[in-house]
């Protein structure tokens, strides 16, 4: 299966669709991962609607690309991307966080193979991705493994064990994206644990590191191209994200979980309609 290569404007348009889903889902539950979802919409559009080779008719296709969401909690955008990629039906979003629904707050594999591993206990996703990348390489598959980590998650020690490991194994079929949105429960990540420079740390561990504006579609696409072209080392894309991106009155707000009133939800949807 060849890679789907929509244009940058097409991907930008689809990111707006993802944002609409995110607003509707959080509007329904009133409080949740709104700012992170809007912020990461461009990344998820580029990944699920362009970069990843998936086959909605064969979810277990061995040579599919795999993506793990290591934080597991940024699910409004995750599930929205599944819908736009045709992996789950649109009506499923209406059950987000309902009792009995497989669309839990933290994504689990109850939903299906598209949740490639149940994460959420922070720091574990990169290790699992490495295991997949090692097996795929040993079996001669050209499939790639992507893993999205939160920036706060980099405070977990296991991430650095795994970073050493991936660099040492030279896993060029592995691409990690750091969702650098500066949000964690305690507040601004830099005020909790200073982490810069992030890319340079991974470079020192043997990675190819790329810093980008994570809300600039051309930047994202170029970085993914560069990761794919890199041989002999894994790539980390450190994506600077504006929380709430795309909705001016939410942009730059700092809240791990945000409330969205019905009125603000309608305002946000109107802004997205206008932009479309």
């Amino acid at each position, binding site marked *: 299966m060849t890679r789907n290569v929509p244009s940058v404007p097409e991907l930008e348009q689809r990111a707006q669709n993802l944002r609409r889903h995110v607003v509707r889902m959080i509007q329904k539950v009133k409080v949740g991962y709104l700012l992170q979802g809007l912020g990461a919409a461009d990344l998820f559009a580029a990944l699920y609607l362009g970069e990843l080779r998936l086959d909605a008719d064969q979810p277990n296709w061995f040579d599919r690309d795999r993506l793990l969401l290591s934080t597991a909690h940024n699910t409004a955008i995750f599930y929205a991307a599944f819908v736009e990629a045709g992996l789950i039906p649109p009506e499923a979003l209406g059950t987000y966080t309902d009792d009995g629904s497989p669309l839990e707050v933290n994504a689990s594999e109850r939903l299906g193979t598209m949740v490639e591993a149940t994460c959420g206990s922070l720091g574990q996703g990169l290790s699992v991705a490495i*295991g997949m990348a090692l*097996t795929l390489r040993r079996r001669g598959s050209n499939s790639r493994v992507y893993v999205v980590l939160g920036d706060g998650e980099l405070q977990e020690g296991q991430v650095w*064990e795994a970073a050493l490991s991936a660099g040492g194994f030279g896993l060029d079929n592995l691409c990690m994206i750091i969702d650098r949105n500066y949000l964690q429960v305690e507040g601004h990540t830099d005020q909790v644990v200073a982490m810069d420079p992030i890319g340079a740390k991974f470079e020192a561990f043997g990675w190819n590191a790329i810093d980008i504006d994570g809300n600039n579609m051309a930047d994202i696409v170029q970085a993914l191209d560069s990761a794919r072209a890199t041989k002999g080392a894994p790539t980390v894309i450190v994506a600077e994200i504006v929380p709430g991106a795309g909705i001016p009155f939410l942009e730059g707000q700092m809240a791990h979980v945000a409330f969205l009133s019905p009125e603000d939800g309608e305002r946000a949807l109107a802004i997205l309609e206008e932009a479309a």
Partner: protein
Amino acid sequence: MSEVQTLSHGLGGFADLRHWHETLNARSYGHALLAAARADERIVCLGADLSQPTQTHLFRDALPDRFFMLGIQEANMVGVAGGMARTGDIPFAHSFCVFITRRVFDQIAMQAAYPKLPVKLVGFMPGLTTELGVSHQAIDDIALMRSLPNMAVIEPAGPAQIGAAVAAALDYDGPVYLRLETSWAEPDESEPLMPLTLGKGQVLREGEDVAILASGLMVAQALQAANMLAEGGVSASVVNMASIKPLDRDLVIRLARSHKAMLTAENHSIVGGLGAAVAETLAIGGIGLSFAMIGIQDVFAEGASLDYLLDKHKMNASHIASKARQLLCGMG
């Protein structure tokens, strides 16, 4: 534990029965694993340093493309094993018992147990079998692993049961904790091989007065205790409970009904291990009889020789025999 069920020699594959035979007949872990891996190319071997102490240098040298040395990073190793299992492999991950369980409990829960992946966690140096000290003494590993849904826990009684233990681990399509002893590297070739079936205990000696249910190195202590008891006219049954989870509950209940007293003997804390599993079975079964648990009595140990520690913690054959006599006299 109804959720743990065996496949009938399904997962391991073993299309070539010679290797199945080779695995079952191996008397060292390293040889058993290598034979299994030669029969099934999905089997991969992960190490966190410690190739020699975990006998996986044999695998490393024979099948290097399926051997992955992660270095001293157990948490990452368990996650990597989960990723490999999700991609179709059957990973065996190795370290000392304490580091392959307690240190990585959350990683195991999330990346092996919850998804019920065929990740086989292999630990060496159980309980008191190290002079190094408290950092390396795994006294709670069985309790931890037993508490996880989907997880099977196997502790063979010696080299004669190693091959069967590896085969049983492969026979179950899910996560397994295999608890092994380092000193078994040089086995006695004349000892008859012992079978091992997940969920089944093995009566090694039939008696009438007291039933001693043991696992691992405590099986030998229990057999020795039974000899001591026999000299005083007390007849003891000795049972090897190598399958700690799933536990052979039917056998526990049958033995409880046919004996006056029951003792468990484990190289582990009495909290959450074999003894606790047996006690739960008796309580749920509504069976009351004289009962005691030989093991580490909810304390930390210390670095010292095994003989010294077994004596200090009242776990050797003499102590087992003496506890059995007390139970039978109603003084237990």
